[in-house]
């Protein structure tokens, strides 16, 4: 899959995210839109996870620690054939397995998340397990930037560094907003890169909405031998929809019919632009 195909896929994914949230009547709209390019590159270029190899744990793993952006994850898993579009559209319906946070009841989900600050420790445990067995697979985990206020994240980083987990790739969806407002107003985390560097990690920073940059950086791990690779992915919350971008209100808001149609039109237009490039 080349860059243009990935870009087009990201737009289709955004269209699906909006569709299932609109249909299901709830969802973490803006956070799913900020991280979808990361998931696109992970699942279509890096992870090599598919329904055939999923049950064997000797493969790459992905733990979505920012569980609330589950609509992005469901959308990608549907696209790579873990379940049908019909299943996906059952999101939030009574007795559906497709709930508002990742659950292993849904095919393709590795770990139940939703409470923040949990995923990194679990990912580190998996990476330690692979190191013990000298198995050459990677573990990837995605954290939100608001999530970084959870102390357990930093506990996990200490251990990950101690065990030299160069098979662990930590990605921060740095969209700079959380439910209350700007991360830097709610509980400042900057200078973030300095903090990660001081923990002994090998760090990089990318445009987290550029599939090309993401593909390049994710293809080059480990950045250093015996060190955790950590990527700050600078993203835009609500990315792709003009009236949602950087607007705090879209954290968990469902578009009206009018807004939904407008958003789909904007995405169609983006698609045409990419096709004409």
């Amino acid at each position, binding site marked *: 899959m080349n860059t243009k195909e990935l870009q087009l896929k990201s737009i289709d994914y955004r269209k699906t995210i909006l569709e299932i949230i609109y249909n299901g009547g709830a969802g973490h709209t803006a956070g799913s839109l900020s991280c979808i390019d990361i998931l696109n590159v992970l699942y279509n270029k890096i992870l090599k996870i598919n329904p055939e190899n999923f049950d064997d*744990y000797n493969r790459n*793993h992905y733990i979505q620690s920012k569980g609330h952006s589950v609509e992005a994850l469901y959308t990608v898993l549907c696209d790579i054939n873990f379940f049908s579009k019909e299943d996906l559209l059952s999101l939030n319906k009574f007795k559906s397995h497709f709930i508002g946070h990742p659950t*292993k009841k849904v095919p393709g989900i*590795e*770990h*139940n*998340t*939703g*409470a923040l*600050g*949990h995923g*990194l*420790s*679990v*990912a*580190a*445990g*998996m*990476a*330690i*397990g*692979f190191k*013990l*067995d000298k*198995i050459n697979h990677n*573990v990837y985990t995605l954290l939100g930037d608001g999530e970084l206020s959870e*102390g*357990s994240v930093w*506990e*996990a980083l*200490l*251990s990950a560094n101690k*065990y030299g987990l160069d098979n662990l790739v930590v990605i921060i969806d740095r969209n700079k907003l959380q439910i209350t407002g700007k991360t830097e107003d709610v509980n400042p985390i900057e200078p973030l890169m300095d903090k990660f560097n001081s923990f002994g990690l090998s760090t990089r920073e990318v445009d987290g909405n550029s599939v090309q940059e993401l593909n390049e950086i994710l293809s080059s791990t480990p950045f250093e031998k015996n060190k955790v690779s950590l990527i700050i992915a600078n993203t835009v919350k609500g990315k792709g929809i003009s009236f949602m971008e950087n607007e705090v209100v879209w954290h968990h808001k469902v578009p009206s019919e009018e807004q939904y149609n407008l958003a789909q039109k904007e995405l169609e237009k983006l698609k045409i632009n990419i096709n004409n490039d």
Partner: protein
Amino acid sequence: MIERANLEIFAETLLELAKKDKNIIVVTSDSRGSGKLTNFGKELPEQIIEVGIAEQNLVGICAGLSAVGKKVFGVSPSSFLTARSLEQIKNDIAYSNHPVTLVGISAGVSYGQLGSTHHSIHDIAVLRAINNIDIIIPADNFETREAIKSAVNYKRPLFIRFGKKPMMNLHTSNHNFKIGHGIKLKSGNDLVIVSTGETVNRAFKACEILEKLNINCTLISMHTIKPFDEDILLNSLPKAKGVLTIEEHSVSGGLGEKCASILSQKNIHLPFKIIGFPDEYMVNGSQNDVLDYYNMSPEKISEIAQKMIK
């Protein structure tokens, strides 16, 4: 006969098993000394993961190791393990269904004068309310050894709770240990006494005092709190004049309330008493002093038992 501390038996049994199975991994939070695992660390350094004083991280790492095929024992003082990391136990172990064995050491009031920060008198109650995790509290060396052997290949999330005092062996060679099945240590028609963990020893001594007074009790070591063995309790009741429960735990949400809930929902109305810690600012002292103060000396247990059947 006084045997050794259950904690020592745990560490020794786990080391024996781990020598034969390199998939057995122990995770500690600066707790290998208190968990009697120093030897394990020396003999099998590749099979022990040390996360420092970070219990939340300990539980998460246990889940991750389990997800890639390891047989994991997370060992940490019960107080911190089941309070500070409760959300990790709930989500990363129980809800995510990883068959990790979490070992809460120095449980109850084992830490004595170190005080309430270190006491763990809530752990049974909180874990009873978490879906999909089982709870075992061995009474003596036999139950400890069998519990650890059963835990290695157990297919569900599990919590095992230990004190650290030497325990008298209560079992004969006829006893069978099976998770989810209590053990009847004594049979008698006057009173049914149900206990769990280290207080079973105290209940056993109380029964001996009562026997001299010609009062014969059934004593059940309810080593598994979840899943709970309703049958052994109900089958002991027909001739009993009452039920007495004893636990090194808060009276809220523990063994006693579990028994009471079973009896009341079966419409069985017998004199019933729970011995445990009340909801109050607890007295300070050694484990022994605290247990005695809250009616858990063999003498006090036997006094209460006598009053119940009068």
